[in-house]
């Protein structure tokens, strides 16, 4: 990563902070700014933990989300869909914001 990218990232970050934190973001259920949308629109992939069990993973540009995949009995789902410590599926496809990191 070169200096100009760092500058862009810092400025972008400041812009977001000005929008959200300083404006006291009251509604936690929407994503604001460039890729504004309801959070129910997020597209998930699967991250496979070191035990081989699945987690929904969403990389929404700036925000990242991770939540356990559970079966109807509340137990972890360990589908074997991928190797441990890997991620599969469209986990960074839900936003037009490129991930700089």
């Amino acid at each position, binding site marked *: 990563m070169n*200096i100009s990218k760092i500058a862009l990232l*810092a400025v972008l970050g400041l812009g977001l902070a000005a929008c959200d*934190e300083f404006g006291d*973001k009251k509604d936690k259920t929407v994503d604001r700014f460039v890729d504004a949308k309801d959070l129910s629109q997020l597209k998930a992939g699967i991250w496979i933990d070191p035990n081989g069990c699945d987690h929904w993973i969403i990389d929404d540009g700036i925000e990242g989300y991770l939540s356990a995949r559970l079966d109807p009995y509340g137990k972890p789902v360990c589908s074997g869909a991928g190797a441990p410590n890997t991620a599969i599926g469209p986990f960074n496809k839900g936003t037009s914001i490129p991930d700089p990191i």
Partner: protein
Amino acid sequence: MLNLANAARVALGAAIVAAASVLAAGQASAQAAYVPGIWVDPDGCEHWVMDDGWEGYMSPHTNRQGIPVCRRGNTCAVMNSDQLFATDSYRIHAQGQQMLAQFFRSAGATSYIIAGHTDSRASDEYNMRLSINRANSVARVAQGVGARIADVRGYGERIPKASNGTHAGMAVNRRVEIICIR
């Protein structure tokens, strides 16, 4: 390039100051309102989700017993035990083997969770053993046709679907559930 580098330094400095003031603000208000939204995962189950501006947070929506709250299920088959096993047996008869093999060949899931259940006759301990044995029998058929088994469980009589007070209810409770992981 020198100007840009300077600009970067100034911007970074400003970002750090901004971050510090955010931290201070967080400490000042002890009880902030955090009302979550709901995200529905590809299995149809709900998760609490919050976007705090910078950070995103997510956690499964379960009831107080730890059971996920789902809008649809991924249980793709419920096999009535009477159609597969004789009373007290965990050996699947030939016709049942064929029916199960056909099911696993066509279901097309990534993997399967097999959960055995019984009615409430006989002891809890006996039923726990019988239900896991029956679930294992079903899993063996699945593996025989190349299906991947994620887990095999026996819940005994502990998760009834219907009343054990009637014969019809008990028949419903004697079952092997197949959960399709896609």
